[in-house]
């Protein structure tokens, strides 16, 4: 990969630079075929987006003037490393009244940082912890 960030002219990636794109287990786009499905070679993992693809989409978003969308893709890139169960656990914890205290959220944030190097996601959860405390959201809902 070159150092120069991608621009809008590199989009769509699958058409303009398919060589940059691969599935989660490294299969290139042109290996994702019906034959591969029939032979059992192709699994859902091969159809998962990679953190690299998300970071490339983030570059394209920023080039198109959409930094907020780009930041979401950057968070998503981190999240590709987080197992589904944990994604849903943290989501649940972020819902109002689920965390009993600020501490629970801060711990989750630290967990994301330690286990997955998910700096952006951890920051988002920590920011939530601050605001939830200020707004009294650590109250029981049910």
């Amino acid at each position, binding site marked *: 990969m070159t150092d120069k960030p991608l621009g*809008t002219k590199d*989009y*769509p*990636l*699958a*058409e303009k630079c*398919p060589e940059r*794109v691969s*599935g989660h287990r490294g299969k290139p*786009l042109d290996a*994702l*075929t*019906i034959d591969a*499905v*029939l032979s059992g070679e*192709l*699994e*859902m993992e*091969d*159809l*998962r*987006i*990679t953190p690299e*693809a*998300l970071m*490339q989409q983030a570059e*394209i*978003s920023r080039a*198109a*003037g*959409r*930094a*907020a*969308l780009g930041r*979401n*893709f950057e*968070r*998503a*890139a*981190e*999240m*590709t490393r*987080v197992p*589904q169960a944990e*994604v849903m656990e943290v*989501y649940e914890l*972020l*819902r*109002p*009244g689920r965390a009993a205290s600020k501490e629970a959220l801060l711990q989750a944030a630290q967990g994301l940082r330690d286990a997955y190097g998910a700096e952006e*996601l951890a920051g*988002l*959860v920590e*920011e*939530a912890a601050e*605001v*939830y405390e*200020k*707004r009294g*959201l650590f109250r029981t809902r049910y």
Partner: protein
Amino acid sequence: MSNSYDANRWKRFDDWDARPLRLDQFAVEDPENGFSAFAGAADPKPGLTVEAGRVASMDGIPAAEFDMIDAFIAAHHLDRAVAEEAMAIPSEQLARMLVDMNVPREELVRLARGLTPAKLAEAVAQLNAMEIAFAYSKMRARKTPGNQAHVTNAKDDPLQLAADAAIAVALGFDEIETTMRVARNSWSNALACCVGSVVGRAGTLFQCSSEEAEELEIGMAGFTSYAETVSVYGTESAFVDGDDTPWSKAWLAAAYASRGIKMRCTSGAASELLMGYHEAKSLLYLEARCLCLQRGMGSQGTQNGGIDGAPLASSIPGGVREIWAENLLAVWLDLECASGNDARHSESEMRVAAKVLPFLIGGSDLICSGFGSILKYDNSFNPSSFNGEELEEFLVLQRDFEADGGLTPIEDAGALDLRRRAVDALSHVLKDLGLAEPTEVMKRSVAVASGSNDTESFAPRDVAVISDKISSRGITVIDVIRSLHNGGFRVEAENLLFLVKLRVSGDYLQTSAIIRDGHVLSAVNDPNDYTGPGTGYRVSDARRAELAAIRNVLDREEVLRREAASEAGEARAVEYRTMGPATRGEDAGEVVVGVSPGFGTKIFRTLAGHPLSAVLRALRDGIEAGGGRMRVLRIRHTADTSFLGLSAARLSGSGIGIGIQSKGTAVIHHKDRLPHNNLELFSNAPVTHLEHYRALGANAAEYARGELPAPVVVPTQGEALGARFHARVALTYAIETKMCENNASPEEMEITFLDGQR
């Protein structure tokens, strides 16, 4: 009829009460109680102060008092690099820039990143409805317009879902959305629509609206490709009752992207009002907060424009203008906009059509965020603005305005083939994966059914079993692709693989992405570049031809074909013989009937369907009953009713003539009157029947005797006769006018009725 002249009410109000409109409930403007579209009692004044790089106050609220929505907007939406510049521009000027075609969209989008919710709301509130509509068309993100369908049914019947999904695809919908009557049926609905949506064409995006966690799981199994149920609200209390916060929603936004699934948020006017937490703020201001939040969390788009709150918003003065205004805010904030026009906001079809019009003629990323492609009772989201019933009306509106509403007409035969193909494909998958055994009766009933009332298919319990099996066995889209291919549904297997491969590159995660002709089309590679006439989206010649190709259109050949079908019958009923040039009659008791050039030669029945022989007979019977005698002339120099009548009258011994066109329009004329000042006119041929022609004959005979008969009244029920008949009239009449010859003299006719009666 009762003559209750002492009634205390004008009866027109009873008529008005009976209109569907009066089922709509309207509410008085009441800003203190949240019933205000644009001017809430507690709406803040726009403002922004930044100290040491941090937002110190926003819209009059100090940072220390921010609720969670303010806090999120200040942290994630406001771009400090442009905020100072943007906030310094007067709202009036921003409003003018929105409707100025010389100010590019990109410039306005750049400024929006530095505007607070109150400022955004204040700017668009300056615009009248037409200006909002224009600005929306200029500001929307993707150039090519699109549309989204609901595909659901009252039984959650998978076979019908597959068939209806295939139809939605054929109609051209870019996205289809399903949901369930029973929550546990979600996996079955997802599988069924997924299979149906790859019949006929690849690339229709599909979502299954269900509980957040399950929706994500269904997406991860590959059945769905997008989600739009990430709802946000404009007040903190409504948000909390919605069981989320801006941070939990931002988390979900990242979660969908991390699984390669397209996502948009949802918000719409009056949801806070409906949920009991409006804070005495206007619909527009609260919605501006929602939309800033969505941009801030990095959602590529929004489903916005009233949505479930549309009916309530529309009960308030200016409510529909506000719905348009919030859509404008969405696109100004550079979000993909699935512009509502889904939950039906009114029982009045006129209100529905009026509301959708700007989006139809000006385009939208997805004009309806749920056009009911199925019948109303089958729509598990509740009826949409447009439903299966009204679908052809939308197609005709596209044709009327040469506007691309994203849909393409379908043909009878092709539609049934597609439904069968979809039903067969899904039936194979259900059997092959051991999920269910659809019978031939089920399949046949579903293929032809318009709605679930007409099907003999799966019972609700069967569907729950199918759904549980899909979920518990961990069946994924790969199993479905393999099954389709092995069952001989190879094109469908390829189509489905194409769709799930999209998630690997993530191209369709960018703003306003849809798939057309196998390519991702988004605001990145198909940006709206409107800068005035000739720019932006234009309907191509090929697309125009598609839009025009609705069912049952009449042409000249069709008119002649239909007439030819009547010709044989008339040849057996009447004989016309030309007896040479007509002369002025001497008989003071005669009524001369002047028939048009095509009468009985090219045209054989009236617009009401009466054979011309029967019409002539009725005229004769009437004339004779009135004590007169009929003489028939063929007028050759004109086909105009008035001149036919006047020409006949001037050759009539009594001075009274009847002019009649072959389509049945007739007149009684007097020789001394001006052409268009006749005695009696029968202009509504489609509702003029034989008894009227008979009465017309009788009246003509009475005029001939110098009497003053009561004019014949042909009653109408207010039918739009022009709409029903004028295309045929114009084609028929042109056939007659082409036969006219200048200065050709009238000819005497001998009429013989051939069926044995006199």
